[in-house]
């Protein structure tokens, strides 16, 4: 009917994290908000930010850390984040059981297999520095495209930095692993997935954005209440996904939705202190130009305050 067409671009290939989006679409929450949302998979935050900036998509899901860098390094200051979906970074140190890696200090003298992009965002250095590890004593081997997991299993490297879930789980399915060390638990947290929009589009479509976030919050509650149903809905939209994996992901991802500072707050709400930490970490370890303020990258003005 007279629903507003909205194009949504995910951060990555659709996964358990995106379950609320499909739930909202399926349950008609988007339609209730007057929206007809088309959901398109992404291939990383960079692509999504560019797709929003070019106007090809209206709403995107991308890392807030990536958005900060896009603003400082490439002038993407016409884009802002309006909600944080994955505020606790799942990035962790993953190693096989018996690797002798139980605490950060153990990393010295070991071999790290890492994605070039993951290395370059500087958080592994931040993690090392924050925990008194001499990064120069770690041998870095760059392995992209997911091949680092194979290298870990094969013993070509001693540890990798990757998402504790689901990546750690997938390694664990092959061979037992040590408990992943979450960077966030060691004082190094970049805010992950967030909802981003272009500012000028936002100015004209504030209500649409609000409606979108309302729908997402409602759907999120449904997902939490019935993960199996959420999984089934997901599988309808993305039949090639692995149903077991998705279910596990849906369940486990809930623990990354909030940081200590935003715990108990509505889904999507981001604590200013977390944004500040993200900015300062990037400035310190990722060579980001200084001068960015939290207001530049995040606004909570469109988030409906619902009590859960």
């Amino acid at each position, binding site marked *: 009917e007279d629903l507003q067409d909205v194009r949504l671009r995910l951060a990555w*290939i659709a*996964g358990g994290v995106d379950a609320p989006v499909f739930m909202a679409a399926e349950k008609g929450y988007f339609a209730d908000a007057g929206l007809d949302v088309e959901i*398109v*998979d*992404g*291939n990383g935050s*960079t*692509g999504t930010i*560019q*797709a929003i900036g*070019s106007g*090809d998509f209206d709403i995107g899901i991308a890392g807030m850390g990536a958005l900060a860098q896009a603003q400082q390094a490439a002038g993407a200051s016409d884009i802002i984040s309006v909600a944080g979906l994955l505020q606790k970074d799942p990035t962790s140190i993953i190693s096989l059981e018996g690797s002798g890696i139980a605490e950060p200090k153990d990393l010295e003298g070991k071999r790290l297999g890492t994605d070039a992009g993951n290395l370059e965002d500087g958080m592994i250095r931040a993690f090392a520095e924050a925990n008194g590890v001499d990064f120069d004593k770690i041998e870095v081997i760059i392995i992209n*495209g*997911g091949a680092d*997991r*194979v290298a870990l*299993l*094969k013993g070509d490297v001693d540890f990798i930095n990757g998402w504790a879930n689901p990546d750690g789980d*997938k*390694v664990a*399915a*092959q061979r037992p692993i040590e408990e992943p060390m979450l960077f966030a638990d060691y004082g190094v947290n970049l805010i992950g997935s967030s909802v981003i929009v272009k500012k000028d589009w936002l100015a004209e479509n504030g209500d649409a954005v609000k409606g979108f976030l309302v729908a997402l919050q409602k759907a999120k509650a449904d997902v939490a209440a019935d993960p199996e149903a959420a999984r089934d809905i997901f599988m309808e939209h*993305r*039949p*090639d*996904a*692995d149903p077991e*994996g998705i279910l596990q992901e849906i369940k486990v991802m809930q623990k990354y939705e909030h940081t200590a500072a935003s715990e108990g707050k509505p889904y999507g709400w981001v604590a200013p202190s977390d944004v500040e930490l993200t900015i300062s970490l990037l400035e310190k370890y990722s060579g980001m130009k200084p001068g960015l303020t939290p207001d530049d990258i995040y606004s909570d003005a469109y988030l409906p305050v619902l009590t859960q």
Partner: protein
Amino acid sequence: MASVPDTTYIARRPSLKQLAERIPPAVWTLIALLLFWELMVRWREIPQYILPAPSVILAEIISYWHRLWPNALVTMGEILFGFACAVCIAVPLAVSVVYSQFMARAVFPIIVMSQTIPKVAIAPLLLSWFGYGITPKIVIVIMLSFFPIVINTVMGLRATTPEMLHLARSMGANGWQIFWKFRLPKALPFVFGGLKLATALSVIGAIVAEFIGADKGLGYLILIAGANFDIARQFASIILISLMGMSFFGLLTWLERVAIPWRESVELSGKG
């Protein structure tokens, strides 16, 4: 006696050997390779996440066929359509390079330059220019596969001897006729060489395009199977792609033989 063919042999041993001979030798090599692969995996106990055994992959192909096949059709569609477009672009382009100094010296080098741009690196641009549907896939297939067609067609069109051109002009052939009746037939064997090269590249192109952003196709399957660490499924898709590529190449080899009957004996005598 050398010139008497071995028809006698075939006549002597009738059914079994004849049957075996009807199977292309490459199939035997493939079977041998797969056997070797299977044995190596079993003997060296290579874990599945590094290299699944052919038997495992085959099982995966069968059990996942209901999803593999529709996705393969999508990829095949992209390949064939992109390839067709590439031919439609490459041949006229090659013609213009042969006929126009401007194209040859001012435009062609830029096209060469564009060939070395890694498509994956400019993916966001491509997506933003060509949308997120099937168009960017087709564009990438074209970009990857048109170049060998251009190069070989240029080579072929230039193979026309001055004598032939003299003949053509003496008959009052116009540019059009010179092209259709002299240059093109002469170039055909070269063009087919380019087309055969382009088949492999068009397949790669479709997969790369699906890596960049897609929600169906074998490239997409490889990507999500990779994310799920489902290596057997990844290999199942890869094997399917390779088979598609080889069939496409075989088709073109056959087409070549049909389209260039006068060359046959030259190729045969090529041995030696």
